């Protein structure tokens, strides 16, 4: 009895300290200090909001008539005319209200499907007066007992399913069914379990190859934020959600419990369902609460990064890029800095038909760099191609680096241009992890392609399971131009067999 009470009190105090008054160990994090340079390539355009209304964007959708739909934390859906205009002077109309944290929004066949904390809902306007009138619950099978039990919903997959990532209870526990799981809601309202082990998701959606991923936050069993693939029957790393396997017989037996204070690579060998993170976003260096993301399918209207993921960050108000590839059957990839200096805590983003990237969110609840309580902004490509590391791919003996513009062949063929280090995180029950097991691989050869756009690196000392951090400070264009961002981070779960 004593013990139980103490445990309860501990849980309670934990909940209060973590949720109400976060005690951060370190500072919020500096910007990359590249904003001035970035602004030459990507302009931040303000999407003005009507006076006196708080619009805390949690999800976006582009409507067939070129309106922007915004689902908000306060439970509204707004339809916005003119948000995609060059000089936006948008008109807002409230389509629906009274919902509970709209963190997933899609529109198909005359109906919205929203993911809110309580459920996935199909919303229609059946009397055609421009305002929603029917709200049909598609699925609310999961338990919901704590405000932090957020639910993030994808846009429909090709089969029309909405994938819902369910945050843990108070972000530490799994007090009610399916907290920490991903569920798939079919168009006719069936709910199917996908995987367990989620901690605190934010964005959810396909990667550039159409495979469903989600954005996970740093915390217990998560050394840093990461993008993970939602594999059917998989386990995403946080074992507190194991207790619901009884409710999902089709998932089979619950996995073996992972050992704490271990390494992900080690535990992958013990726990066969354990899905490693595909792209680690090293803490502070690359955001500290990654959130919504979307793949650039603009056909080049957004610059040289077509078919890459653009991912926002809540705490640091930045946008980053990510690329993924499947190596030896395992997803992995890299992340790259992109644009800093957005106005608020970003929760979500959306490409427009014009090929610009709308971002938005709120600073509510957690510390945020950006200076405004809420905002919606747009990143417009200026048409000038930035000199950037476009993509990194793993090779059996190193990496292939692709650039957006030709590199200076002399500088790029000098191995000293490429500084590398690797590290991993402790896979543990405690909150987050420092970077550990650092190594310094050596670039022994750098071979520049004829067009100057690629450099093939031969590296001694690749470490499986480690994040490989690149620093290309000396890299130049033939004209002497520097990289806008000198760093990139590749998560090497697997070294390609050949």
């Amino acid at each position, binding site marked *: 009895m004593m013990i139980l009470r103490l445990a309860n009190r501990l849980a309670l105090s934990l909940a209060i300290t973590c949720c109400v008054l976060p005690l951060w160990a370190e500072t919020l994090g500096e910007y990359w200090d590249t904003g001035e340079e970035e602004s030459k390539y990507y302009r931040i355009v303000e999407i003005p909001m009507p006076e006196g209304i708080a619009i805390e964007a949690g999800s976006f959708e582009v409507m067939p008539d070129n309106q922007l739909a915004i689902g908000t934390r306060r439970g509204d859906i707004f339809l916005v005319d003119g948000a995609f205009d060059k000089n936006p002077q948008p008109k807002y109309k409230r389509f629906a*209200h009274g919902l509970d944290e709209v963190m997933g929004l899609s529109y198909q066949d005359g109906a919205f499907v929203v993911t809110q904390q309580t459920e996935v809902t199909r919303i229609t306007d059946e009397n055609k007066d421009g305002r929603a009138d029917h709200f049909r619950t598609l699925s609310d099978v999961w338990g919901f007992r704590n405000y932090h039990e957020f639910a993030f919903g994808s846009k429909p997959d090709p089969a029309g399913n909405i994938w819902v990532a369910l945050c843990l209870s108070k972000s530490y526990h799994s007090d009610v069914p399916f907290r920490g799981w991903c569920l798939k809601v079919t168009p006719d309202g069936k709910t199917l379990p996908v995987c367990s082990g989620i901690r605190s998701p934010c964005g959810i959606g396909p990667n550039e190859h159409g495979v469903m991923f989600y954005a996970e936050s740093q915390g217990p069993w998560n050394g840093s934020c990461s993008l993970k693939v939602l594999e059917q029957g998989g386990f995403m790393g946080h074992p507190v959600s194991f207790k619901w396997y009884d409710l999902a017989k089709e998932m089979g037996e619950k996995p073996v419990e992972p050992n704490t204070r271990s390494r992900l690579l080690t535990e992958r060998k013990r726990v066969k369902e354990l899905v490693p993170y595909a792209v680690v976003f090293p803490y502070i260096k690359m955001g500290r609460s990654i959130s919504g993301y979307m793949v650039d399918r603009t056909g080049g209207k957004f610059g040289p990064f077509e078919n890459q993921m653009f991912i926002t960050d809540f705490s640091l108000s930045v946008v980053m890029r990510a690329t993924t590839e499947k190596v030896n059957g395992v997803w992995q990839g890299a992340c790259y800095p992109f644009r800093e200096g957005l106005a608020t805590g970003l929760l979500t983003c959306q490409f427009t038909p014009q090929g610009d990237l709308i971002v938005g969110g709120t600073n509510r609840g957690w510390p945020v760099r950006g200076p405004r309580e809420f905002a919606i902004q747009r990143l417009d490509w200026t048409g000038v191609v930035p000199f950037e590391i476009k993509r990194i791919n793993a090779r059996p003996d190193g990496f292939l680096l692709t650039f957006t513009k030709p590199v200076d062949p002399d500088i790029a063929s000098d191995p000293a241009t490429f500084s590398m280090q690797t590290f991993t995180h402790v896979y543990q029950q405690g909150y987050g992890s420092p970077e550990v097991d650092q190594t310094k691989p050596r670039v022994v050869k750098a071979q520049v392609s004829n067009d100057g756009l690629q450099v093939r690196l031969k590296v001694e000392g690749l470490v499986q399971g480690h994040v490989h951090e690149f620093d290309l400070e000396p890299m130049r264009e033939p004209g002497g131009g520097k990289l806008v961002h000198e760093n990139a981070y590749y998560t090497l779960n697997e070294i390609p067999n050949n």
Partner: protein
Amino acid sequence: MRIFSMTVLAFLGACWNSDLFAQANAVASNSLSKQLQRETATDLAKAARESGDPVQGAILFSQKKFNCVGCHAQNAANLLGSDLTQVGLDVPDEYFVESILLPSKVIKKGFETVTILDIDGRVLKGRIVDKNASQYVLRDTSPEQRLITVPRDSVEELKLDTKSSMPEALADQLANRKEFLDLIKYLMDIAASSTPNTSAQTVQSDRKLDPQVQGLALLQQHHCTNCHASDVASVSGSGSVEIPHGLKARSAPDLTLATSRIDPAYIQRFIADPQAVKPATNMPQMMDNLAPAERKTTAVAITHYLLSLNDQTFHREAVNAEAASRGERLFHSVGCVACHSPRNSDGIEEIPDDSVPLGNLSSKYNVSGLTGFLENPHAIRPSGRMPNLNLNHWEALDIASYLLHTVKPSDAGQHSAALVFDRSQAAIGKAKFRDLGCIQCHHMEESTTVPTAIKLSKLRPDQGCLSDATGVWPGYSLSATQRDAIQTAIGKLDDQLSTSQQITMTLQTLRCYACHERDGIGGISNERNPFFLTTNENLGPQGRIPPPLTKVGAKLKPKWMRQVLVSGRAIRPYMETRMPQYGTEHVAHLVDLFQQTDELPQVTMHKFDDPKEIRKVGTELVGSGGLNCIACHTFQQQPALTMPAVDLTDMADRLHKEWFFAYMRSPQAISPNTVMPSFWPGGKAIRKEILNGDTDQQISAVWEYLQDGRQARVPRGLRREPIELLADNDRAAMLRRSYQGIGKRGIGVGYPGGVNLAFDAEQLRIAMIWKGKFADPGGVWRSQGHGTVRPLGSNLIRFQTGPELDSSESPWVVDDGRPPQHRFTGYFLDEMDRPTFTYQLDEIKVQDFAHGVKGATPEATSLNRQLVFSSNRARNDLAFRIRTEGSVTKEAANRFRLGNSLSIEVDKDHQVNIVKDSAGSHLHIPLNLPSGKSELTLRYTW
């Protein structure tokens, strides 16, 4: 005249006094002043000393409605009131009480006001803050408290006032006796901190700009180094273009697209005679040595050349009157009129002499041309002097519309004179453009321009462009003073400028001085002062006047400063004037210069043993139990209720600790415009119980606390504007969130007419009903959203947990989970947005619609509820239950009283039982559902 004047003054004096008298009489006998005056000053002073809260007093002291700081700022010598830190230690406590309750009883020597009648018949009222043989300097008693210089020989009459300029019934602005005591206690603490005033200032007359710097700025402004190379470039060692002192060769406007946005007819006239078309323009006359007719043909040829540079045609466009009217407001508030002249309603410039001329814009630009220029001035004028005011497209369009909407009839004819492009003329124009030297400043893509004229250091100060004579050189309209300054600068080209002079030069070149004062130079002039506006008057002048730049390098950290200068970072949303941007290459060097030049005495912050503990103490000091910084300062981007003073969580990123330390000790000494009171007047803490009242330790603790930046702990006393979510007259309000007593799946509905309910979509029941206002969603719309929606209004009735519809015999044993057989399926809205909830039990579908029905009295207002059951087979094993606290009694045939105030009437088709069980008694309505639809109707009155 003299005889008259005496009478006039006496009359005015009488008016003034009688006004006051009337005011005093108007004070009701039960006003706070009167109540306080019934007590003795001694008693009040004693009470203040014993129980007054000096921190609350300090906050009152700073409030706009009292404006104490406006007259009694620390370390200021020339205000209307005295510096209260100089009151002296030997003053009896009663003095403070009487100063507020009876201000005219004793007026402090030297702080009497006078009334002056001048020979123009003006009546001026104020305190003489300085005088000499020829003039008085008056701090006037108007709300702006202007400094007015009155020549002695213009004074017709001067009379000493017997009334204090301190407001009579100040205490009536206070809420209660406690506030009075708090304020008095703060005044006592200030006085107790008395220190000899070492920094007594006399009236500061504007310092004059050093002629050398002024000359260099003129060289810069006129692009002199584009022709006259500096041969002392090696001194700075920074390449051939740059010459010492930061003088750079700069480009004049880019003319590539000029003829698309500027009327070619205007261009032609302007080239022919720049000064005549746009008086005071920077553009020199390049053809002084040509005959008027030749000037004209040359101007025409050059215009054709400019036409050849693009294939766009100039069109004049219609001006939207609404845009123009918005533009008028923007033009006069965002900062344009800091340099350009404000205009009256007829579009006539009001301060033409001391302003950067705009010329006749309507004859020059079309709307899109001027809009494009205003959106991004540096694309066209790379010199940076016309700054980017961060106007978005629509704001630029509004201002352009305003500036172009006053087309004078006399100009109308000149617009039509369009040129028909002539290629051969263009070729001639191109040659002229080069030969006349236009190309030296207006760089063209293919041109390589090197300074070819006499080197700067070899210039003869009395010849060429520096003389009155005309010749083959460009003709500038320089005043004698400007020439002198340029000559001085040229004479001293070999002298390295100090960092301080380099700053001055940039500030002068970019006209920063039009808004900012630094070291006694610059600042906004009296006549432009009214155009500096704020959205929040509570902040006082600091809320609208751009901050002084004196010691700014010791104030702002370099990174922050760079963001302000280069990226336009702004943290004062209440200030309507915008900090413009001048382009990185023109201002970025200021960051280092400021940081190198400006110094404050080094401070050593107190070192604490336990950094965690001291942050806690800092939190306490910042909170309402300490110094209550939170009462006025924005915290984590959310403004305080009193005023949106600068965000506490930005301080660590912005400020150097030396500046913070000095500012805390004496805010007004550092920033004369601030309304911030001192919490350590004279260096002595007014909060003595924290850290033993040690000033250094307290300031250090606050500093340590602020270092957490955006992650600083939330201090006590953070108050938020309440949010109210209310139904409209004809539409219901609704919010799906957590409500008390429901799991997380609550759905609140506020019906028009003042009836509200919260539905539990997990246990399928009405969980509570109440009357009046709907709800305060603050608990779920603020912070992370961990709270609940709070019902507003009154007469709240809660129902007990568990589904209303369930098995008659063996209902689900209620816990706080979900009933296993029930399923919520959604809701639909009627034309008033009133929901019909839908749910299922087994195969039975339920439609549950409630709505408020307004009665003649609030008591008669009811909630009517209709449930429609659809079943595919007959069911007689179900019941509908309603449970509240308390007993259930029968009131009439089908009417029951539940608890003390709720009455529920059930339709006649249903039999109703009162059932007692271990949990108390409840209303039990057995259902006999046929196959198909059936209904249950309930009416709740309470």
